[in-house]
């Protein structure tokens, strides 16, 4: 018979044993009776001679089975029974644990999916992003993306490197697909040769784009994303070899990439070869992201050194045209800062997620503290039972184990319930998360998360079970048996554990609330910032691109845009309209160029800081609510006549000429060939890159300008955001009328990125909002749990001290005095907790410095406010049980027990 089958048959074993023992006793009794004893006496004697029946039975059974397993089962059964007997305690404890576990699981799921799981490309550890910075080029390289690569850099790096297996450059864009159904704007990624090879993900069907597809003016080829393939072509394999019209240019589909494939962090509909024309490349054109695969064994430091070595080669091999100094870029101090691709994908979200994970972890600690407290109170109430068990011969180890089994069981059941909640929580997080949360489509609960949750549940069960178990299982049965239920008031020593738990809870709650408070202040500060536009929920935006293949003549492009404006303005409820190359915070890559002022001297005739520039239509400023600080807007007639006019931002005007009004009439240009443009207006500063970022200096050019390089008299901006101010913005009816208006001008123009300015704004503060909500939830949970903890301790103490209070009252103490005494005792705990919390918060809030805006990490107002709030709530938590205690009739209290 194996152990297992014995385990199963142990009921039979039990039955047989008791039967046997009963027979033994019966026989003995009979014999004794036969000897002349009375039946009662005989029974007593038989039992006396036999010994402890229960122990004998247990010992006999233990011979058979793996005793610890047996005992575990009996402990578990016992735990279930006791838990079921106190449903309120069980429900409160389970709910607390479940919520804690759910919050942790949900957040860890996101952290795991976004930060921990490797990228889905083969051998992801070899992949790097060719990031570089240029401290000598203010403006252009100030932001997250650093200095991007130019096509000539790509060729230099690809041909001269020693540390990469392959490398390529890519950039996102949009394109119009026509001829399928309605004209549609799709997301594109332009890739050079080497990008697909570097990422090494084979196509779902068809083939990759090959070097032969990268030949300028060669055969036009394209790849599709799995999602676009499914949506537009129903997943039909016959799409391979078919032509689709992209920006009025037929291109042959050669392959489809598999589901979920992204180029680094960009999802796309179509993948278009860039087809650089080598012969026409110059040094400049820093607009491409670089991605590379390191040679096996090569380190990032080696790769950085490799790029540093190649920069002079790059400057020697290319030029910006005759008469320019190729080594001018030395002043930019271009420095490679290659980073693992994963870091590039995750970006700044990593820090945010860790903060959230940390806070949720603290909440879990508070949950444990709270449940520990509940258990402590409960074990105290069960002291008599435990003492009886000890007296009956249970070893203290056995009792500890019993208690631990009970708490671990609580933890695990809580965990199981928690995982259920977590599924809902993950949905909530994904919906709530910053819209640009990377790897969004990969977020899901996996085995690792489940494992962590289970471990977490069991561990927390152990954690909150251990303190009460060790505290009360010590053998001291006699005193417990005697004193249980008759204490006058509770000894100091018994209180210490619970008190320190309450102090800890208060402290952690304070830290979380402090973080939440700082985020609220940050949000408030962000709201107060004038972003450079007004009333964003009534601003309707949409992108319209007019490709060369649709309308060739630049002037015709501008006239079409003008006609669209006129049609839009005629829609009912529209107050004003305008267009611009990109609205603030839209996230479209803006143009940067060197700007020269006529009355300033520049070294070498090339040195000048880079400035952000935009093209702007008349009416845009008024529509967007951007103030004109000085001068006037340009007019349509000036635009069509190619009058050399320009507007600048206030900060640029101040930097160059001191005051906005002094800028009017001054002249500036980009290149020496370009005619000087007269500054006719100065525009308020705009928070172009987001509310948190400082406003860059901006030059506003007309939408059509004299042509500097290619053929033809002028060039027009073709990709624009149209802006409509109307109270009807965002409604379906309104959008239908807008579409009809656009298509009445040209039916081949798709509308893309249709949204209100409010949505753009919300996206740009999504990170802050997300952090705020998460910290707010964590803080609220901590506050509630902390208060429950304090309240629980206070009311329990009160119930223990009923007699004492009764005596005090009977002896003539005033109720007010007693109340004060109790409150003082409770508040002492709260204040110690708050003091500890302030100390901790002082160190910890500094960690979230990067998430804050316009507020110091040690903001005194937040510290004072949160402390005040906590004191207030703590007072309440003490007052309720205290009041109940002193209202007790002394006579009743004294008779109690």
């Amino acid at each position, binding site marked *: 018979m194996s152990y297992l089958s014995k385990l199963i048959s142990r009921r039979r074993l039990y039955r*047989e*044993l008791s*039967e*046997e*023992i009963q*027979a*033994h006793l*019966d*026989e*003995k009794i*009979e014999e004794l009776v036969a000897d002349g004893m009375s039946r009662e006496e005989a029974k007593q004697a038989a039992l006396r*001679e*036999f*010994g*402890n*029946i229960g*122990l*004998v*039975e247990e*010992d*006999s*059974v*233990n*011979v*058979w089975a793996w005793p610890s397993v047996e005992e575990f089962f009996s402990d578990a059964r016992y735990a279930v029974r006791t838990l079921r007997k106190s449903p309120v305690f069980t429900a409160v404890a389970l709910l607390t644990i479940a919520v804690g576990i759910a919050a942790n699981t949900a957040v860890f799921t996101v952290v795991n999916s976004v930060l921990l799981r490797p990228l889905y490309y083969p051998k992801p550890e070899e992949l790097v992003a060719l990031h570089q910075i240029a401290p000598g080029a203010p403006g252009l390289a100030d932001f997250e993306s650093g200095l991007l690569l130019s096509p000539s850099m790509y060729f230099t790096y690809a041909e001269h490197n020693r540390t990469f297996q392959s490398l390529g450059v890519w950039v996102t864009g949009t394109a119009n697909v026509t001829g399928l159904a309605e004209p549609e704007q799709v997301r594109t990624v332009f890739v050079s040769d080497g990008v697909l090879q570097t990422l090494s993900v084979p196509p779902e069907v068809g083939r990759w784009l090959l070097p032969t597809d990268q030949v300028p003016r060669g055969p036009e080829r394209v790849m599709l994303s799995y999602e676009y393939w499914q949506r537009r072509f129903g997943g039909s394999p016959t799409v391979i070899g078919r032509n689709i019209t992209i920006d009025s240019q037929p291109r042959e589909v050669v392959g489809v990439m598999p589901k979920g494939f992204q180029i680094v962090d960009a999802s796309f509909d179509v993948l278009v070869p860039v087809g650089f024309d080598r012969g026409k490349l110059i040094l400049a054109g820093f607009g491409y992201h670089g991605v590379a695969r390191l040679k096996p064994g090569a380190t990032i430091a080696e790769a950085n050194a490799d790029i540093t070595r190649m920069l002079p080669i790059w400057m020697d091999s290319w030029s910006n045209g005759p008469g320019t100094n190729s080594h001018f870029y030395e002043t930019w101090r271009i420095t490679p800062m290659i980073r693992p691709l994963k870091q590039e994908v995750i970006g700044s979200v990593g820090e945010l997620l860790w903060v959230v994970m940390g806070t949720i972890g603290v909440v879990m600690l508070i949950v444990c503290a709270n449940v520990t407290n509940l258990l402590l109170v409960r074990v105290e109430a069960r002291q008599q039972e435990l003492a009886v068990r000890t007296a009956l011969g249970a070893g203290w180890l056995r009792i500890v184990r019993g208690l631990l089994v009970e708490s671990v069981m609580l933890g695990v059941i809580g965990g199981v319930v928690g995982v259920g909640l977590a599924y809902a929580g993950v949905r909530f997080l994904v919906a709530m998360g910053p819209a640009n949360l990377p790897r969004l489509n990969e977020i899901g609960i996996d085995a690792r998360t489940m494992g962590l949750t289970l471990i977490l549940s069991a561990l927390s069960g152990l954690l909150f079970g251990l303190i009460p178990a060790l505290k009360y299982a010590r053998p001291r049965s006699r005193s417990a048996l005697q004193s249980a239920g008759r204490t006058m008031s509770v000894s100091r020593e018994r209180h210490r554990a619970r008190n320190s738990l309450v102090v800890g809870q208060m402290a952690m709650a304070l830290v979380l609330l402090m973080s939440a408070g700082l985020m609220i202040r940050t949000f408030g500060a962000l709201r107060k910032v004038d972003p450079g536009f007004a009333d964003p929920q009534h601003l309707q935006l949409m992108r319209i691109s007019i490709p060369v293949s649709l309308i060739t003549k630049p002037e015709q492009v501008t006239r079409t845009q003008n006609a669209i404006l006129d049609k839009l303005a005629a829609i009912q409820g529209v107050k004003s309209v305008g267009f611009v190359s990109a609205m603030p915070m839209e996230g479209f890559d803006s143009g940067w160029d060197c700007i020269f002022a006529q009355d300033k001297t520049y070294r070498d005739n090339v040195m000048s800081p880079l400035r952000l520039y935009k093209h702007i239509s008349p009416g845009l400023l008024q529509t967007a609510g951007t103030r004109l600080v000085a001068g006037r807007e340009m007019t349509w007639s000036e635009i069509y006549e190619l009058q050399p006019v320009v507007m600048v931002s206030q900060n640029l005007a101040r930097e160059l000429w001191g005051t906005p009004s002094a800028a009017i009439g001054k002249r500036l240009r980009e290149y020496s060939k370009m005619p000087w443009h007269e500054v006719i207006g100065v525009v308020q500063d705009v928070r172009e890159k987001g509310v948190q970022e400082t406003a860059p200096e901006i030059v506003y050019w007309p939408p059509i300008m004299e042509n500097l390089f290619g053929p033809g008299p002028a060039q027009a901006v073709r990709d624009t955001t149209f802006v409509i101010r109307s109270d009807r913005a965002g409604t379906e009816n309104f959008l239908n009328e807008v579409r009809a208006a656009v298509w009445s001008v040209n039916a081949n123009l798709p509308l893309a990125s249709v949204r209100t300015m409010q949505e753009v704004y919300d996206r740009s503060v999504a990170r802050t909002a997300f952090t705020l909500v998460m910290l707010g939830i964590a803080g609220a949970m901590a506050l509630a749990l902390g208060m429950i903890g304090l309240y629980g301790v206070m009311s329990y103490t009160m119930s223990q001290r009923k007699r004492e209070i009764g005596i005090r009252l009977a002896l003539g103490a005033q109720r007010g005095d007693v109340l004060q005494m109790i409150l003082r005792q409770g508040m002492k705990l709260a204040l110690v907790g708050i003091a500890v919390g302030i100390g901790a918060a002082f160190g910890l809030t500094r960690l979230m410095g990067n998430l804050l805006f316009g507020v110091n990490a040690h903001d005194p107002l937040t510290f004072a406010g949160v402390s005040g709030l906590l004191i207030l709530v703590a007072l309440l938590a003490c007052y309720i049980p205290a009041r109940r205690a002193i209202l007790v009739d002394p006579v009743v209290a004294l008779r109690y027990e």
Partner: protein
Amino acid sequence: MMILRTLKRQPLHGYALAQHIKRASDDLLQIEEGSLYPALQRLLKQELVKAEWGTSSTNRRVRIYKVTAAGAKHLQREVSSFERMLEGITRVLAPGES
């Protein structure tokens, strides 16, 4: 050893076994009757004895224990080692041979 020895003589059930040992030791060995059972279970587990349900002299359904072959061998070994030990003790304690 005592149990095995008693059972070797004749298969018995629990109560009878207890009485036997008591009588045989002339009440010198005061053991709780109950402690017999865990010991019996141990022997059962080591397969030195086996048990069968039968009827006692007082007509109760009881388990009758019987020594197995392994049990007999074990007893022999135990007895001989015990005797050797006893012999050793006797020799040490035997007076005046030195």
